[in-house]
């Protein structure tokens, strides 16, 4: 079964602008890690935001885990889509500790389950010793791990990552790429990763595509 199914998706920032995404289609199977490569301004971040529900397409449809989330006549709010996202700057809540950040997406669950999920996530990203820290007390790489754990904790159908390495030092990148691949594999997570760096895709992804992809250029 396809976890993500995008059909003929188009988007432009205003009515009169050239579409930044033009009749784009993509299917992703369970467990695939898709890398989307392209220069800045090619609409790759916008594609993630459309899947997440943070933008509304001008036409086309998106289906996630068999459920239609947007088309020309309906729109499902981002919080109801079962999509996780790691933002480029991580956007960890500055007024919450690591623990509270990760538990933030687990609010619907019983107390015990939340606790055990938290421990599981901390272990997955190897951050057990940092639960009481605040985001500004962590290094860039540690922040990224917390952001990843926070996005994975509610067990989304698909994980979106927007330039996850752009805020890290070059000498750290190799190691963290390797870790990320392991984490995603362990969690058996269907993912879409957007980047401008071919190396990211080569190290992590099972499948890649280039943007801008428009129906015209294909």
């Amino acid at each position: 079964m396809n976890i993500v199914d995008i059909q003929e998706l188009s988007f432009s920032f205003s009515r009169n602008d050239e579409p930044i995404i033009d009749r784009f289609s993509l299917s992703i199977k369970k467990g695939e890690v898709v890398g989307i490569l392209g220069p800045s301004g090619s609409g790759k971040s916008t594609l993630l935001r459309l899947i997440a529900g943070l933008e509304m397409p001008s036409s086309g449809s998106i289906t996630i885990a068999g459920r239609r989330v947007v088309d020309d006549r309906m729109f499902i709010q981002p919080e109801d889509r079962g999509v996780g996202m790691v933002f480029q700057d991580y956007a960890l809540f500055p007024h919450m500790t690591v623990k509270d950040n990760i538990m933030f997406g687990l609010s619907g669950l019983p107390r015990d389950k939340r606790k055990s999920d938290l421990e599981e996530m901390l272990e997955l990203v190897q951050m057990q010793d940092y639960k009481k820290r605040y985001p500004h007390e962590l290094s860039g790489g540690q922040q990224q791990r917390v952001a990843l754990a926070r996005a994975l904790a509610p067990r989304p159908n698909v994980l979106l990552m927007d330039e996850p390495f752009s805020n890290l030092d070059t000498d750290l990148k190799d190691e963290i790429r390797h870790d990320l691949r392991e984490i995603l594999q362990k969690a058996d997570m269907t993912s879409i990763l957007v980047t401008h760096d071919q190396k990211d895709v080569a190290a992590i992804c099972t499948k890649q595509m280039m943007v801008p992809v428009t129906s015209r250029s294909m």
Partner: protein
Amino acid sequence: MELDKARRYFQKECNGWWLISMVGAGVILLPILYVFLSLFQSPNENWIHIRQYLLQTYTVNTIILVTVTGLLTAFIGVLLAWLIASYDFPFKRFFRFTLIFPLAIPPYIAAYTYRNMLSYTGVVQSTLRNQLDIHINSELLTLTSVSGSIFIFTFFLYPYVYLITLAFLEKQSAAYIENARMLGQKPVPIFFKIILPLSRPAIIGGVVLVVYEVLSDYGVTSYFGVHTFTTAIFQTWFGMYDVDSAMRLASWLMIMIVGLVFIERLLRKRRRYHLPRQSRSIVPVRLKGGKAVAASLVCGTIVSIGFFIPVIQLLAWAGMTFHTIWDSQFFELLYQTVYIAVIATAIILVFSTIIANVTRSPSTFSYILSKIVTAGYSIPGAIIAIGVLALFILLDGWLAPVYEWMELGEAPLILSLSLVMLVVGYVIRYMAMGYNAMEVGFEKVGNRYTESSRMLGHGKTTTFFKVELPLLKGALLSGFLLTFIEIFKELPLALLLRPFNFETLATKTYQYANDERIYEAAIPSLIIIAVSVLSVIVVQLLDRRVKE
């Protein structure tokens, strides 16, 4: 197809937040529109009388006040901004800050302070007479109607021009001024050839604020007995109880303001300079000898007239009346003022937070909404007051059957005699202050935390309480302070909309002054001034924090 899309849009955007915003916009828009509608009703006898005998005087006086004050404040404001921005002289840092202080003295307080200081029995003439034995024609010093108002407005409103022009000169003009210096120009030609034309948009911006203040003034002009549109609106209501004519006057005043906005756009239109992006701060030139003394003297004189002299005089008067004024009744008055200001401010902040949250996502709709919300600030208090008053009387008329059913008597005035009316007036007038603070707050927080929270399964409202509210604390605090202080010292709305026997510090001060009980007015005046100085300091501190 389009209909489906519209429905999809509503599915995405329409929620409680949106609905409350619409209610807020409606509350603000309704009285203003109601005032405008009065233009299309057939006029009554009063109006015919007003139009025949009085309208011309109102118009001429208003135009004279606005034009002369505008020119004088522009002159003083730019002169000071130029001195402070481009030169170093003794006490400059002190003057840079204190030159703003005249804004902290409400013009009506300044008006009665100066009028009495300069009168025959006032401190100036009696000192001249008794100590120095100089007898002058007392007419010469007496502040009278139009010229007196212009004097007061000029010395207590020029900081608007000074502030905006100073900010412009300090940040943006270094390259031009230094270039002109390199090309061998002397300071005076630089002022006229470079600084004046370049800062035109800033000067116009400041003068427009001054003009708004003059147009909405009631305290100064009524104290000096000048007939303007605003005083006329009050007189038609208090003297003749003629709401229709008052509304008609208000709508004419509003047309003048729309005209003003139009003129402002026209004046600024072709003057949008592309200023150098990487602007350095200007390096001030050190003045020496006579020039330095002259510069200090100019600044010192203006800040003395605009702040220190009236404050010292008020302190002296306050000392004389302290034992009679400072009693439990006074605390009651203080409590009432704080009470109503806190209620109005709280309502304003709730609405502005909700509306600022809705207008975060850019669209034509949010642009219009933000314009409506901030409209009240550029509309004189008297217009808002008369609109609210008329609307509440209408509302009481509609509710008459309900009142009767509740056995409150036949067609009583319930709402229009209650505090609700004044609170609504405050909310309309000062919504802009709260909204601007919250808009900046949301801007600083950004969208990323909100988006993360929604990706983690929380809706708009939970996100607000769990994520945004804790991050907005600073903005809420500064918004609360600024709005509270404005309402605390507000005069025209309170005068027109307060219930019978309800007094605020400002209305009481005004009443003392009007009854020629000048000494008694000193203590409430000083409290208002102290609170306003606090607001000036808060604004400056916030400004500095934003810069960092």
